[in-house]
């Protein structure tokens, strides 16, 4: 199986280890991984501001880079959600539709497509908490949203439970938004920071040492708050845990 790897811009620059872990993890499952070199950003930051004029070019470039692949996998729920659900600043040609339909978030790709049942190489002997992003939960349905009355499921939790040694702690507000929200974290700084701080207190109340997420963007915001407040919490992408590093 051949997969095109979609590495969101902020992971490329700030969290390359999450990208490396994703690459290695996919290869461990026998997948041939291709990284189109001309990728930049999916256009989400502009589109979320309602600025279609400025997101169109990024969206078009994304399609140019990823068209023709059966699977496009990205380790970031919110970016994948943007591609799949809101990629509408450009005309919906066949290539665009095909790219949108074939783009997968890493957890759902591992869970739904590869159907993985073990990570024999992975050990993680810590108490950790899972932070599924809102885009992943309510946008991509990688977990049952707490508001919705249906059978419980949580794909990232299911994958993490296969990792030896890992103890997942439950939170008081399991899927409360952390307040990142893209540009919201800057334009609405006070609310954003308070939400992040409340989230961190929830982790601390339950004695989590690590926070694991399929979305590094939420963690970037939370990590910034924890560091500023001098709180010792470690934030890590789920791919790194499932791959056994790099840390």
């Amino acid at each position, binding site marked *: 199986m051949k997969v095109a790897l979609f590495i969101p811009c902020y*992971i490329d620059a700030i969290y390359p280890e999450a990208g490396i872990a994703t690459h290695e993890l996919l290869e461990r499952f026998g997948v041939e991984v291709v990284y189109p070199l001309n990728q*930049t950003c999916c256009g989400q930051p502009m589109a979320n501001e309602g*600025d279609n004029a400025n997101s169109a070019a990024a969206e078009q470039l994304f399609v140019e880079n990823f068209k023709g692949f059966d699977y496009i996998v990205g380790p970031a729920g919110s970016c994948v959600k943007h591609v799949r659900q809101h990629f509408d600043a450009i005309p919906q040609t066949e290539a665009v539709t095909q790219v949108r339909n074939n783009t997968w978030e890493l957890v759902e790709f591992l869970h739904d497509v590869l159907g993985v049942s073990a990570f024999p190489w992975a050990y993680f002997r810590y108490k950790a908490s899972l932070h599924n992003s809102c885009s992943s939960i309510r946008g991509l349905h990688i977990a049952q949203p707490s508001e*919705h*009355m249906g059978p419980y499921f949580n794909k990232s939790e299911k994958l993490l439970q296969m990792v030896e040694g890992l103890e997942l702690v439950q939170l008081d507000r399991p899927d409360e938004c952390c307040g990142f929200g893209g540009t919201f974290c800057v334009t609405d700084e006070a609310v954003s920071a308070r939400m992040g701080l409340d989230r961190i207190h929830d982790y601390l109340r339950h004695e989590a040492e690590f926070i694991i997420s399929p979305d590094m963007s939420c963690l970037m*915001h939370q990590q910034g708050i924890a*560091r500023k407040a001098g709180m010792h919490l470690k934030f890590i992408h789920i791919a790194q845990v499932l791959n056994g590093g790099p840390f």
Partner: protein
Amino acid sequence: MSSKRVDVAANAAAFIDKDDIHEPFHDEHLWAARMKRDAAARAVPEWEALRDLASQIKAHTLTHLDHYLELFEANATRHGAKVYWARDAAEHNQHVLDILSSRNINSVIKSKSMLQEECNMTAFLETRGITVTESDLGERIQQLDNQPPSHIVMPAIHKTAGDIAEIFAKAIGTDPNNADPQYLTEAMRQDARQRFLKAGAGMTGANFAIAETGSFVVCTNEGNADIGASVPPVHIASIGIEKLLPKVQDLGIFIRLLSRSALGTLATQYTSHFTGPRNGGELHIILTDNGRSKRLGLPDFWHSLKCIRCGACMNTCPVYRRSGGLAYGATYSGPIGIILDPTFDESKYSELPYHSTLCGSCTEVCPVKIDISDQILKWRKVMAEKKYLPISRRLAFGAAGKVFEHPGLFHGAETAASAAMKITPHFLLYNRSLNPWGRHRELPHFAKQTFREWYLQYKQPDKEPSPKEL
């Protein structure tokens, strides 16, 4: 309209920065309501099916609204009510004034009605010499404090018992140091009852209006609407035209959803049905548009008219819980306010759609399945197209758009940003006005090597990047 733009982010920041009491209290109480709602919803196995049904009934009614409104008018009139039509707030208020003036009524008791809030009715009547007394406890607290309600269901939820003790001490002479809720409520009961008994007319809103019977339903937990409707000889009901339901049998679905969604209770304490005037009394119904038919004509936004005003989206909204309802500067706050308010005044409320993380919890919790989160994003597009975005933000995204369009520029920008972070003095990076990120957050560190560089080095070592790829 040339009203001043609401700076909801600054208002929210002020609520958070005020002290260490109000914002945490607000957040905790509303989250508790959300938790109670979850438990109540979980106890109904067909909950999701009920949401679907309710949404479909509302969609049907709204797409046949002219028919159901005329049916309602005919049936209400047949039962002896007098029905009026109001295009806007001014016409609504004038009808109320005409009814009161022609009967020499100068004192009114009212129960909570968001429509009357929308019409700014109380101020209109009071400047014309008519005393208006709120009968809902939370709404009375707000009235005595000269504030609008901050929540659809819990108007004074942003206030602590201490705040209320202070207000009541000034207004009705209670002990300023006694914040016992029982004591305060009893004191208000004694004060308000005299006003209730003297009122010449009672005003209510309506939660639902039934076309096939011409009756309407008012849901309260305090029974205050029932006092207003049954003590004074004249009852005036303000009903938004979107409140229609075709049949009585539809009501069961909505009654089951309303109170469970709002407060997590099985039903409101009082669910009162009004069909025609009581013996010897008068019933006046004002069917009010006030922007609703305009909203019905907006392809992206007409679904917002399904709203049954339960407030569940506000309770669940993590942004609303931290901001307090008054931050929105509008009749409706929280997620539902964000999508309703711009239909009243796009310019004044142009910042509201940005006051959301788009987490989507509002959409999932909504008992009538309004796509609130998607509508918030669509409103941003309207604001961007109409150039309501602050100029600094538009410029930043114009620049970002250019960078992301060209891989070479992007990789150059990455390097430049990484270098800039290293040489920029700390006070500049963390200056509040220059960089709001840094006020409560450390900046992330750029990695020594990007993923792309790693890939070129370890995965494609033979491949020299061509100039086109740089």
